């Protein structure tokens, strides 16, 4: 009896009760077990371990299940709100970029007209127009990063979130 036979017997024993083995494999295994004390010991230990482990029960307490559900619901709500906020910010950003792009030429022309009227050098007016164009967006972005999101949740945002959350549920 060589090592490969022992290994095959152990493999078949471990597979027998869950994956199952063929009739031919079962016959070979029984024949092997009749002659092999080592594998028989393993078979007995395997069977006893399975019975022992199956006999243990552990019931989840009701309070644990309820707490878990509450936490999961709260987290789901939080994730939905984050998603809604991200969507709203994305839409706002896109609209901002779009309007800025469309109005850039107008502001630039206005700046040039003001410079011409006041006789100011373009070295002052052009950066001024750029600042005028970009500063509000930069200021809002800084504020949004620095301050908690709830500060920006006005009635429109609240209504949007409520509708979105109600729709998701």
């Amino acid at each position: 009896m060589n090592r490969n036979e022992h290994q095959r017997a152990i493999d078949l024993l471990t597979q027998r009760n869950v994956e199952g083995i063929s009739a031919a494999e079962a016959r070979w295994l029984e024949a092997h077990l009749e002659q092999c004390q080592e594998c028989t010991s393993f078979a007995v230990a395997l069977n006893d371990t399975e019975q022992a482990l199956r006999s243990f029960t552990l019931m989840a307490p009701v309070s644990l299940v309820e707490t878990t559900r509450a936490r999961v619901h709260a987290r789901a709500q939080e994730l939905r709100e984050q998603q809604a906020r991200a969507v709203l910010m994305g839409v706002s950003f896109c609209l901002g970029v779009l309007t800025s792009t469309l109005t850039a030429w107008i502001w630039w022309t206005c700046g040039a007209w003001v410079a011409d009227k006041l006789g100011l050098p373009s070295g002052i007016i052009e950066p001024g127009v750029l600042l005028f164009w970009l500063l509000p967006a930069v200021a809002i972005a800084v504020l949004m990063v620095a301050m908690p999101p709830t500060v920006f949740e006005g009635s429109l945002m609240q209504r949007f979130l409520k509708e979105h959350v109600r729709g998701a549920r």
Partner: protein
Amino acid sequence: MVAAAFSPLVTMETEEAQIATSLRRRDPDVLDALIEQYQHRLLRYLAHMTGNQATAEDLFQETWIRVLEKGHQYDGKSKFTTWLMTIAHNVAIDHLRKKTPASLDQMRETEDSAPWEPVAQSPSPFEQAAAMEDKTRIQAALEGLPPIFREVLVLRFQEQMKLEEIAKLVGIPLATVKTRLYRGVMALRPALLGGSQ
């Protein structure tokens, strides 16, 4: 049953696919049903992994939060049980690694090396098994095993998982699963025979 949350006449394959769809939508009703269905199995697995019921209950909650957050990763092609246990396995490993800054394979004992501490309100596996002396002895022997062996034994004999499923869940080769199973069973053998380890 989760199937009841969808339709009473869905096949297993359809149910897994519907679970995947619901998880992507973060449907709280389906999550409730899943928690209901898998509560005992999940807690039992985590309790065996950690060796401490209070810790297992914390990880139980953490596991369901992760299921919610990572639900979009479940494709519905594999069994939900396997995916859930994989999440639980990762949560448990993260916890054990925080407690012990070493790989799980190097761990010889569970956290704090403490014996099982039953919670007053709920019976632990030990308490429930205390009526039978041999069960207590076997459970003690099981708790004495390194988590890597204990986990494979629990998944195999309590959860009735296939060896390939265990290999996928734990992230180890099939041969390693067999080795751990063999060594785990043989390590328990003295307790099973009524002797001491």
